[in-house]
């Protein structure tokens, strides 16, 4: 057990260092940081002085370690575009992205699971067919197209909801929230729906197929034979057993939520980190890109690590396999 946890921790650390080193090379070699920070009128001597001041003349190894050291303490340098500390910019945008992601994930869970359960239990009703079509559309349409469609219907045609921005926000210390104002909640609705649709369809398909599988198992037949009510069998036995993979997939999906948040935020001009990242890519603002990369890498590694450890805790078979094949066993899902 300890060996497994340690090896996983080590692997995660290696991945994290690799991501950080890529970020460093990005930072150092994509464009010249000095030229990016100074204007045309800066003299050559001044540029040279800035170069030494920034430590760009030091040996490469020293620079890598300095970058890593600063990164650990949360310092990613100054944005080329905005001339402000990158960390400050990211932290400022963090609440918008987190609020959007959490609301969309909750929406996906609250709608996707019941839809999946229903279409597994009542396979041949017309409502199930509607759900299937919705899920096919949700899984194959690109998220930005869904966003545009929602804007077209609810903002342009009906004029019910705003199409961009976050509405009025309330500051709670360094955190800003849109939950406390009506315009904030209205502004949240369409982006959250766009971001949640894909996760919702994924959850629905997963719950449906898992339920169908579990309903065929012997213990469900036995439970029926014991004369338990449908309700107990469906929700006490079947649904409960489908929830393990659902939880894992939901956790792993948090990663793609971040990716789709980039797109959703751009469509709705939602002032989050993803929108900031797109603007950084478009204007080659390398420090922002590097910092975003390191941060997203950290979130991903943490999620994957905790999912692995959770799996290990939940599934006793994994412990056997690991010792037999010696770490070669593939992760499921």
């Amino acid at each position, binding site marked *: 057990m300890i060996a497994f946890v340690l090896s996983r921790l080590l692997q995660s650390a290696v991945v994290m260092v690799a991501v950080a080193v890529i970020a460093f090379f990005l930072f150092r070699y994509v464009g010249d940081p000095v030229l990016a920070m100074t204007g045309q009128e800066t003299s050559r001597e001044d540029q040279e002085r800035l170069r030494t001041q920034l430590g760009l003349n030091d040996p490469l190894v020293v620079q890598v370690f300095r970058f890593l050291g600063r990164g650990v303490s949360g310092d990613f340098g100054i944005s080329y575009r905005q001339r402000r500390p990158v960390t400050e910019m990211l932290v400022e945008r963090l609440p918008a992205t987190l609020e959007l992601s959490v609301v969309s994930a909750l929406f996906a869970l609250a709608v996707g699971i019941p839809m999946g359960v229903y279409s597994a239990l009542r396979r041949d009703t017309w409502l199930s067919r509607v759900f299937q079509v919705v899920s096919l559309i949700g899984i194959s349409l690109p998220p930005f197209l869904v966003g545009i469609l929602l804007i077209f219907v609810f903002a342009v045609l009906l004029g019910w909801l705003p199409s961009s921005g976050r509405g009025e926000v309330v500051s709670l210390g360094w955190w800003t929230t849109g939950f406390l104002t009506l315009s904030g909640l209205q502004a949240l609705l369409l982006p959250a729906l766009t971001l949640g649709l894909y996760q919702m369809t994924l959850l629905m398909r997963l719950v449906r197929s898992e339920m169908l599988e579990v309903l065929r198992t012997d213990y469900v037949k036995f439970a029926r034979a014991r004369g338990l009510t449908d309700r107990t069998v469906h929700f006490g036995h079947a649904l409960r057993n489908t929830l393990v993979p659902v939880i894992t997939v939901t956790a792993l999906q948090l990663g793609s939520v971040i990716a789709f948040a980039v797109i959703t935020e751009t469509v709705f001009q939602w002032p989050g980190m993803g929108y900031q990242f797109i603007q950084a890519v478009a204007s080659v603002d390398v420090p922002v890109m590097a910092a975003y990369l390191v941060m997203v890498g950290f979130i991903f590694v943490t999620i*994957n690590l905790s999912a692995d450890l959770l799996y290990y805790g939940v599934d006793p078979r994994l412990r056997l396999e690991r010792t037999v094949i010696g770490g070669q066993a593939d992760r499921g899902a």
Partner: protein
Amino acid sequence: MSWRVGRWHRLRESEIGYSLRRSPLTVFAAMVTLAFAVAAIAAPLLAPHNPYDLASLSLVDALTPPRWDAKGKSEYLLGTDDQGRDVLSTIIYGARLSLAVGATSVLLAASLGVTLGLVSGYVGGRADAVMMRIADVQMSFPAILIALLIDGVLRGVLPLQTSDDLAIVVIILAIGLSTWPQYARTVRASTMVERAKDYVKAAQLIGRHSAAILAHHVLPNVMGPVLVIATIQLAVAIILEATLSFLGVGIPPTTPSLGTMLRIGNNFMFSGQWWIIAFPGVALAMLVLSVNLLGDWLRDVLNPKLR
């Protein structure tokens, strides 16, 4: 003539023919995909205008509504955009670009992934461990993020003037390099199974070179799943291209593409020029849905478990 009938009959009665007849939706999807492919190949013949030809554009005709609208003009069936480009022609040329970018990047990702997967599964050992860890790490990041990153890096590395000309190459590289692990994973798994089989052992015994064994004996036996992944990935690649172009980091706005068109149309949605965004949006949705449906069907047909 008789052999033709015989062949047609055989196709009709074959398993693929049977499963096609049972699923009219798949037939429809195949027809839509075929229509897009024909339109893409024959774009210069089919499109009423040439959106690349800047001289033929007239700003007087900019923002013309579709033909059936009172203000519509007969030469622009689906209206024009803000530059006076014919929407229908731009969609046809855009589909051409989408399919070309999609097919090329799928080819790139597949050749890279299949090669690495074959070597990884056949050689095993340390090379396998390293490659699969890289694939693992890359797969845990969504393709769109990796594509965005590669796109951003290449834009920074390339000089500004050339980056517009090279945008299509950049986008193909970005999509190809961000989607290879899927193929590598699958091919590696099947190669490990094939490696232990007698025909491979026999080839080894008569002293064939490993590369020849992989290319002539193992490869044909692991191609089935690759075909399925490639079809599904074609839809993914088309979506990625449209998304990158929509975000403004893909195809430059002067080149007609579905993504850039949607980006332009997005700005005119509120002022009532709905046709600039609606028609390309519907076209993209139809194309992606059809390719996805075909991929689903192919997976079911080629999956021996479901037979």
